[in-house]
């Protein structure tokens, strides 16, 4: 009998596989493909206080082994989320993690405390979204602001676990990981998308109206694995690995590098059953290697 449970702060997951924010909607779209009860956790699309309509199309473009997106954080806003989406998610035996985004400290704080009161299991601070001019991104690349934000949000949370999602666009991921930890974050998740762009040479126009979008998919995996390892060497709080995870081998690679859990993003688009297949794949790997506890492989790679 293999133990797949993992702890992220005071949050106990039945297995280390979560969905990455913005790639899983609010769960509904996947209910017809997989049994949501089998997921370690569902991380929902980033929520802001007021609804956001997002960017004009085109919003996505395919790149070599990756994709660019500039959704522009389209979301239905806090009120409607609590009313229309949260009840659906509550029906399943899985943890609900809400990714939040604000333009000011106050907005982040307000979002965090209302969601905490509503009893969501964890809050993931999106301080790293590359698709909005103001807001998000600056928190993710300015240490002082990040420290202030994390500490402030932590104060107004009673029971929910606080996860800070780090930006890969920062020069030294270690420093930001340390700031998140010392400011009271219970865990960190990384990486968000990397800022990229593409131009249509026939029209000379950008492939995304927003010009710059976020790069995701297998293309960024080697960068993400490296950042997870660097963060693992720098902090003691749990790390959630994200970036180009399509198959269980990829998830295991992140865990060996130091991730206690993983999030699957773009992989859901290629295969809506990816998350479940990854859970099964991790279990099969542990069996094959006769490892009884998934925690044993976290950071277990033989560095040199």
């Amino acid at each position, binding site marked *: 009998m293999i133990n797949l449970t993992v702890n992220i702060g005071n949050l106990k997951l039945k297995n280390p596989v979560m969905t990455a924010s*913005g*790639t*899983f*909607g609010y769960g*509904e*779209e*996947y209910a*017809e*493909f997989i049994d949501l009860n089998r997921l370690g956790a569902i991380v929902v*699309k980033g929520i802001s206080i007021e609804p956001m*309509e*997002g960017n*004009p*199309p*085109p*919003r*996505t*473009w*395919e790149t*070599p*082994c*990756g*994709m660019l*997106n500039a*959704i522009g954080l*389209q979301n239905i806003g806090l009120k409607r989320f609590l009313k229309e989406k949260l009840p659906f998610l509550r029906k399943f035996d899985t943890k609900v993690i809400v990714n939040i985004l604000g333009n000011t400290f106050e907005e982040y704080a307000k979002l965090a405390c209302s969601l905490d009161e509503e009893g969501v299991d964890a809050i993931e601070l999106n301080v790293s979204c590359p698709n909005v001019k103001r807001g998000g991104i600056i928190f993710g690349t300015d240490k002082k602001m990040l420290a202030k934000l994390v500490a402030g949000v932590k104060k107004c949370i009673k029971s929910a676990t606080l996860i800070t999602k780090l930006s890969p666009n920062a020069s030294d991921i270690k420093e930001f990981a340390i700031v998140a930890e010392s400011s009271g974050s219970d865990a960190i998740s990384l990486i968000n998308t990397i800022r990229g762009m593409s131009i249509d040479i026939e029209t000379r126009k950008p492939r995304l109206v927003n010009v710059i979008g976020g790069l995701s*998919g*297998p293309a960024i995996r080697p960068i993400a694995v490296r950042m997870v390892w660097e963060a693992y060497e720098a902090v003691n709080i749990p790390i959630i690995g994200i970036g180009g995870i*399509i198959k269980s081998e990829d998830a295991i690679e992140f865990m060996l590098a130091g991730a206690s859990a993983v999030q699957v993003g*773009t992989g*859901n*688009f*290629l*295969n*809506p*059953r990816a998350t479940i297949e990854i859970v099964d794949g991790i279990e099969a790997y542990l069996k094959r290697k006769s490892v009884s506890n998934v925690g044993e492989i976290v950071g277990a790679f033989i560095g040199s």
Partner: protein
Amino acid sequence: MSKLFRAEVVSNLTLNDKNNLLTLKPLEKVLKPEPGQFYMIEVSHTYDPLLKRPFSYLRRRVAELQFLYAVRGRGTSLMKKFKEGMVINMIGPLGRGYPRPRKDCMPLLVAGGTGIAPIFSLAEELPRKAYILHGAKCRDELILMDELMGLGMESFLCTDDGSFGVKGTVADALYDFLMHKASPSNHYVIFACGPRQMLEAVARVASEKGIRGYASLEENMACGFGACLGCAVKTIHGYKRVCKEGPVFPIEDIVW
């Protein structure tokens, strides 16, 4: 019965310089599609190209699905190389297709180029006579004419180069039809698919003539089933997902 299934390539034929006919045999039990719905088709087993490609179905037979596709870029170039017996993953049927024409209305099917695909799937399901206006670049690219006739459709054909039928766009043909051939007793409803600028022209004619209708739109898609919000199009009700609320929208709702 899952929307995610494997299918075997039965045949992959070149119809003309532009159009190809792909016939797939699902290897699992699948759902019955509605005219105008589409499928996400895997074009490569590797990560390059990474994403599946969306295609409306052309025809469905007891155990087969047919698609009409034009080679546009890398993905469709790989589709052209699909060989008989090859097995691919696909997702569908997806999205909302064309509504069933009400008894009291006369359907006007309007197709531009490869846009004939979903229009044909609709024509096959129509219980009675309808008009079809089909435009293409040249004679060679006007396809399925006999089949449409066999379905009891009355066709009005046009080509950009005048090599067959009327010279001009299908929007012109639509205008001409409504001006001179339409009978006032008929309550016409448009069902259209084609390039965006053609649909925009059709929408203009429709509003000018006070006729309602439906158009199937295209947008880049990452998932195809509503999760990524990547396929948004602007409507008078705000951004809608082509893959979920669409691909078929009331033509008067679309913000061009």
